[in-house]
C-alpha cells in the first residue's frame, strides 16, 4: 500500500526548494538515507548545501533509521544559531 510522509524544510533548504514542506513517498523499508536520496533527486539544488542531516520526531537521526508514517521529519541544514 503506497503512503507518504511530509518533510519540514527550514533555512536554505526552504529557499532552495521554494517550499516549507515537501511530501515524499514512503514504503515500509524507507530509511533516512533513502529519504535523502529521493529528496536530492527531486530537488537537485539541495546538492549546493554543505551538509544535510535529518531529524525524526525532533531528534537527529542516523542514516539507517527506518521512517514511519507518523514520524515528524525535518531536513537540518548546517545550523547557525547564537
Amino acid at each position: 500500500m503506497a503512503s507518504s510522509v511530509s518533510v519540514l524544510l527550514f533555512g536554505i533548504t526552504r529557499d532552495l526548494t521554494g517550499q516549507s514542506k515537501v511530501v515524499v513517498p514512503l514504503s515500509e523499508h524507507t530509511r533516512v538515507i533513502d529519504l535523502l536520496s529521493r529528496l536530492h533527486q527531486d530537488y537537485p539544488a539541495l546538492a549546493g548545501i554543505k551538509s544535510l542531516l535529518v531529524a525524526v520526531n525532533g531528534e537527529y537521526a542516523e542514516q539507517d533509521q527506518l521512517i514511519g508514517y507518523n514520524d515528524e521529519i525535518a531536513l537540518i541544514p548546517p545550523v547557525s544559531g547564537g
Partner: protein
Amino acid sequence: MISITTDPIDVAAALKSIESEQAGAIDLFLGVVRDNTQERSVNRLEYEAYDRMAINEMEKIADQAHQRWPILRYTIIHRKGTLQIGEIAVLIGVATAHRADAFEACRYIIDTIKKTVPIWKKEVFMDGEEWVNAHP
C-alpha cells in the same frame, strides 16, 4: 528556563529569573547582531528555528552542563525573526556559587548551541543575502 521568542530579549528580566541566595557568581552572555561579517556590511539578520527540536536540543545542552558544573539556576533565550544591528539574538545566564563554574558553563552552553541547535541565521546585506554556514 529555555525559550525561543520573537520579542526583544529583556536582560533585566532574564537576570531576575536566575537570582539565587546561594549564587556568588552570575555570567551573562549576549550574542548581539553586529554591523559586519567578513568585512561585509550587514543590514539585518533573519533567524529561523525548528522550535520543537531547538528547545529539545537546548534542554539536552542544559542537562549536560548541569552534569559538569554545579549550576544553581540558568536561562537560555534565543530570539527569532528579523533582528537589527545591536539587538540581542541570544542570552545565556548561569548562576553558580563560584565564578569559574559560571564562566565555564556559560561558554559551554553557547558553544554547543552553535553546533547542534536547529536555528538558522540569514545575513542580509545591501546587495544580497546568505544563510550562514550553509554553503560548502
